[in-house]
Structures are given as C-alpha cells and as structure tokens.
C-alpha cells in the first residue's frame, strides 16, 4: 500500500515555462517540470541510462532530454522514448497549492 507524503518543493514561479528544476529530498533527487501548456509534472531526477541529473537537460514540448547522451523521456508519463535510454522514469503526483509546488514522494 502506498502512503502519500506531500512535500513542499519550490515556488511555481521558480520554474520557467518549458523548463525543469532539480529538487532533492531525503537522499533522493527529483525533477519538476513546467510544460508549455503550464502544467506541472514530477519524475525521478536521474536519467535511467547513466544517472545524470535531468534538470540540466533540455525540455522540448513534453520531452526531457538528458544532458549527457540525449536520452529522451516523456516526462508526463515517464516513458523512455528511444536509445540510449530503455527504462522509463518513475513519475510522482504533483499539485499546486497557493503558488507552491507540492510533490507526493510517498513510498510503497
């Protein structure tokens, strides 16, 4: 059973539209995205290929590209979109509350 644990990650204004921000919590790293249509998403923060921080990558539409090897993921679903990444990203529930970005880092 999954236990929800909502964490205040940052201000929504800190993330530009079509960009990504790194957030570290409890020894784990997350990537928080703001899409071109002004929605927020969260995934694990490291590329599944070589453990590079995705927050240094490039957001294009709904794709995050790893800054090291061009590994591409759909950050809305976590799905890997082709070589050199094969394994998808874990995604996390996210919500905006009074201008703050909250992510649910709850554990199974």
């Amino acid at each position, binding site marked *: 059973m999954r236990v929800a644990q909502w964490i205040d990650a940052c201000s929504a204004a800190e993330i530009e539209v079509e960009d*990504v921000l790194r957030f570290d*919590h409890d020894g784990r790293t997350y990537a928080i995205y703001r899409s071109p249509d002004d929605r927020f998403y969260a995934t694990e923060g490291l590329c599944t290929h070589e453990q590079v921080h995705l927050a240094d990558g490039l957001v294009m539409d709904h794709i995050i590209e790893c800054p090291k090897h061009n590994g591409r993921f759909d950050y809305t679903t976590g799905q890997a979109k082709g070589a050199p990444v094969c394994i998808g990203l874990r995604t996390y529930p996210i919500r905006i509350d009074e201008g703050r970005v909250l992510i649910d880092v709850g554990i199974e």
Partner: protein
Amino acid sequence: MAAPIRDYSLTGPEAARAAERGLTHAVWYRSPLARVRIKELMQRNDYPALLHLVIWLALLVVSGTGAYLTLGTWWCVPFSFVYGILYGSCSDSRWHEFGHGTALRTRWINDAAFQLAAFMVFREPTVWRWSHARHHTDTLIVGRDPEVLAKRPPSFWPLVLNFFALQSTATAIPRLVSHALARLHEEEQQFVPDMEQARVFRTARIWLLIYALVAAYSIRIHSMLPWMFIGLPTLYGSWLQFYFGITQHTGLAEDTLDHRLNSRTIYMNPIFRFVYLNMNYHTEHHMYPMVPYYKLPELHRELRHDLPPAYRSTLAAYREIIPALLRQRKDPSYFVRRTLPAVESVPTVVGTAARQAGAVV
C-alpha cells in the same frame, strides 16, 4: 623501470580497476555556465543543420555526377577526390552530430540523416550510438572507453592504415556479418543493451543486402564502377576525417575527470569546419554535448576563459601530437599536460542549484 602496458579492452582488469578508482559514471568538471544561457545554447533550429545537410547532399550529387561523366579523363580525379571526402569524411562528422540528436529539431530528418551517414562511414548505427554514449560517459578512461584512437604505447601501423579506414573496415566487416547472424562481439555486449540487439541484427542484414545488390550489379556490368560510388569512398575518402579525429584526444591525459585535460579545441578555417561540423571545439562539445554543433563557437566564447588556450591550427596540434606519440612509444606513461587557466575552478555537479528538502505538508 618501464611503465606497465595497460589493457584497453573493455573486458579486462582495467575495467574493474577504473570502477574501483571511481572513474566510471563519474561527475566530470564543467566550466560554470548559467542555466539560462546553457538553455539558450541547447535550443535547436532546423535551419542551419538543414542548410548544411542540403549543401552536403547536393555537393555529393554534383561531384559524383561529375566523376561519372568524366570517366577516363583526368577530370575524374578531382571530382572523385571531392566525392570521396564528402562521402568518407563528411559522413563521419554527420554520423556523429545526427547520432547525438542535437542537430535538427525535427527528429525524423535527424534520424534519417544519421542512418545515411552511418552507412557511408561504415559504422553500424546502433552499435556506434551506444559506443559513443560510453565514450562520452568515460572519455579516455582505460578499460571503459571503446573509442580510444591511439592506445599507449601507440602502434603506428593501425594509425597509418586507418588513414584510409583499412584497419577499422577490416574489423567492421566480420562484425557486420556476425551481427547479421545474430551474434554480438564480447566487447559490444559491454555497452549495447539486450533490448537493442534486435535492431543491431536487423540493420546488419539490411546493409549486407545493399552491398549484395551493389556486388550483383557490379558483376552484371563487369565493372568495379558501382563500388567507386558506394563502399570504396569510405576508404579512399576517409583520410580527412582521420586527420581531424586524431586531434581530439591523442597524446592527452587518460583517467582524468576533466575534459580540459583530455580534449583539444582547435581553430579551423570555414571549409574544415563545414567538413568537421565544428567538432574542432571538442572540449566544449564534451563538456556540454547537448549544444548543437552550430552553437559551439558561441559556447567556446562563453567558456574560453576557463579552458586551456585553443590551438591555432591543426598543424599546431600535430606539432604536439607527433612528438607525443613518438615519446609514448618509448615511455607509455608520458602524456601532454595541458595548463589550466589560473582562475580557480571548482568542480560543479549541475548547472541548476538543487532545492533541498522542503517541509512535509
């Protein structure tokens, strides 16, 4: 006492040793650059890459047609010379750029150009995409990097033969056949994931089919001519890409986590930069590999204060490389020590500052 000769294979003891020393999947030094600026530089634009792609393909058609129409005359020599460079050398840099996926914003053109260039340079696209990813992860880390051109102590025959892609092709042909038979080399298994293997085998079969068709046509017309336009230009036209490629890392430090110490940035003229697609800015490319090739001069201007001085020309680089190779023949521990700028450089992990634990709500 002579320095021990190191094992560059990916399956030998050096691979484990590199991991023990913390040299694999490591955090590399990156010259600091504001997130807003690196975001600008990473943006892609179809226009410059598409223009360069069209010019390249048009020149291929013009020079190839010229070579064909002037067969039997001396005019055929310069046309073939140009065609060879466009086929055997320009394809190397295009394979590289389109393989990174950074050149074009439109993905399918990027991928199609990657497949075409990989065929021309005779590098199987999936294998080399993964090989190159490893090269970027563990650049010049002994036992990890599959793309070290001059291993220490350098052996000159492979370098001479590869000026015309002879040794690399001699290795690639049996590998291609092996892939078509659904077998992957032991070293390739180190960096090609299982789920990509089917793609490797399928591409190998398609390539063999293409070469079989060229061979059949050649036999039918009793002429080697088709091979002069498909296949052989990989050999007779590769010398320029090899001349450029050897300058990237040769003679520099191994087992370092700073690309400023193991990569060269060299100033080149516009024709060379067209052939090489700005890979003369090699240190910058390794530091920020997602910056498209047409933005590398801009990136160089941003970073140069934090980099060793760029070489004035390829000849200037070779004035360093050739003596270094000769010396490494006798002393494999020797390498060129690049001088870093006096500015204190603090290794950075990421460009964006990490937000730390927020409150539980």
